[in-house]
């Protein structure tokens, strides 16, 4: 076949440098793939992984407590011992707890939205739901925080609403609860939690919606044909199939909360989260090794999380 084609001159018509290059790649697809991958791999490998490894390496250096100079001559685990001091463990524990609560709350609020958007919204409503999800998702991160600064301010709208409803006592009672309360909403964990929830929740909706949209309608028909009530169909068919979507969404909400240092800095009390600890150790304190060791914590947590998510089939739902 190929010999006949070559002899008949069909291929001879497409001569030229470009054609020759094209033919070369057609015969060696592996080479083409390699060349296509090379730029991105070089970029990510050198710029990203290179910097990441350099940072991790720094966590095995230690800072001299008297001179404040980083000792690069030997590798040590001293910095990691420092990381395990009670005040640092507190920071880690606080951050993980916040990330977990934000994730759970996001899933609870996001699920009905995703479910209605995927299964009931049609035409005009579908567009509205799309906008309702995409606008907060893509709206500027800082603008979203700013909006909540306006809302939570003492003279802001939330306090005003509580006042109009004569429910200020309820707000005060909530704020007087230890740990989650505080002097005012904008300097309490409740405030931090609300802002985290608002900023990261949209990332939960899309994967859940995609997972639910992928449930074939004939599965639901079969379920009801076999005598399941709508509620049974939901719990036995839809929910298990939507679960990978929830796990996929939780990767975002969990990871983003884990590493954020701007939200707790603007809305919250002065207790540090991991991100703030990293920021202050690398900046004002100049303790790069400890900052590096702190970044290892979210990396380890996220690697474990991603590994678990992969087993739950969450990557197909991204």
């Amino acid at each position: 076949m190929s010999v006949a084609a070559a002899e008949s001159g069909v291929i001879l018509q497409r001569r030229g440098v470009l054609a020759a290059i094209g033919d070369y790649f057609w015969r060696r697809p592996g080479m083409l793939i390699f060349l296509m991958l090379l730029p991105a791999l070089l970029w990510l490998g050198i710029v990203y992984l290179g910097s990441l490894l350099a940072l991790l390496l720094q966590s095995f250096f230690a800072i001299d407590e008297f001179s404040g100079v980083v000792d690069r001559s030997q590798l040590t685990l001293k910095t990691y011992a420092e990381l395990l001091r009670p005040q640092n463990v507190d920071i880690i524990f606080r951050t993980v707890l916040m990330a977990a609560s934000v994730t759970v709350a996001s899933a609870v609020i996001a699920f009905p939205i995703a479910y209605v958007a995927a299964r009931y919204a049609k035409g005009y409503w579908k567009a509205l739901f799309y906008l309702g999800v995409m606008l907060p998702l893509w709206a500027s991160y800082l603008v979203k925080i700013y909006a909540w600064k306006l809302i939570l301010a003492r003279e802001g709208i939330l306090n005003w609403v509580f006042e109009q409803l004569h429910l200020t006592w309820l707000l005060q009672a909530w704020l007087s609860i230890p740990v989650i309360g505080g002097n005012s909403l904008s300097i309490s964990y409740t405030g931090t939690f609300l802002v985290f929830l608002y900023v990261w929740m949209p990332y939960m909706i899309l994967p859940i919606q995609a997972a639910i949209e992928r449930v074939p309608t004939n599965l639901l028909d079969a379920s009801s044909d076999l005598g399941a009530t709508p509620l049974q169909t939901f719990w036995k068919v839809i929910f298990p199939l939507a679960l990978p979507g929830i796990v996929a969404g939780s990767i975002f909400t969990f990871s983003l909360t884990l590493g954020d240092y701007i939200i707790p800095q603007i809305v919250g009390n002065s207790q540090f989260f991991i991100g703030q600890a990293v920021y202050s150790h690398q900046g004002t304190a100049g303790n790069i090794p400890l900052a590096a060791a702190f970044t290892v914590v979210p990396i380890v947590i996220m690697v474990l999380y991603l590994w678990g998510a992969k087993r739950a089939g969450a990557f197909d739902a991204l």
Partner: protein
Amino acid sequence: MRSSEPRAPLGLAFAATAGLLFMLLPLALIFLYAFSTEERTYQWPPPGLTLKWFAVTWGRVDVWQALTLSVQVASISTLLALILGTLCAAAVSGTKFFGRETISLLVILPIALPGIITGISLRSAFNLMEIPFSFWTIILGHATFCIVVVYNNAVARFRRLHGSMVEAAMDLGANSFQTFRHVILPNLGTALLAGGMLAFALSFDEVIVTTFTAGQQQTLPIWMLEELIRPRQRPVTNVVAMVVVLVTLLPILLAYYLTRDGDQIAGSGK
């Protein structure tokens, strides 16, 4: 499904509506505050409405400089991400080879790990190699996490693009470049546009990585962050916030129209 239009149960519809309101009302508030006459506090309800602050903001040199820098950084990062992300997506979706999963993971990693990690590792790498912070160090950081957005969009489209179309084009005498120009690119176009716009929006808005990789330069988010931490000119910030929301609204609407058609084709084709 077409015969009977199912309606959402009341409780579910209520929960979904409440959720949507929770997401949209804070943004609506931004629009209102931009017109407030109040200068020193975040007082609600606003004592009066005015257009004065739009003129004041228009005349601010620092806002314009920050905006220009943000647009420049976002444009170049998006361009880089488009090239790298598309090539990578083409390679990964075309064939199966050893290490393919690892490459997908590598591309996703910069957004799967918290931004602060990307930021601090780049910063310490620049310090180690004694690279001074500049316009280009900001771009190095931004392009790294923009690649994944383009990659995701392109991979999804490549998956739908059947190999048989490419083979048909080549059987009909097109060389590889003609096939790319006339068959692959038109099919890929809208996905790249959508991915590119999302990458632009991502870079335009990025603050965490930028705080680590910028020197004296102020992108618009950095300008805003300083206002958030130490509010000095609340009315100007209100106006800037509103404009930023408006600017992000446009690409979203566009991306919606672009990808909506693609979804319909995919739905009817399979």
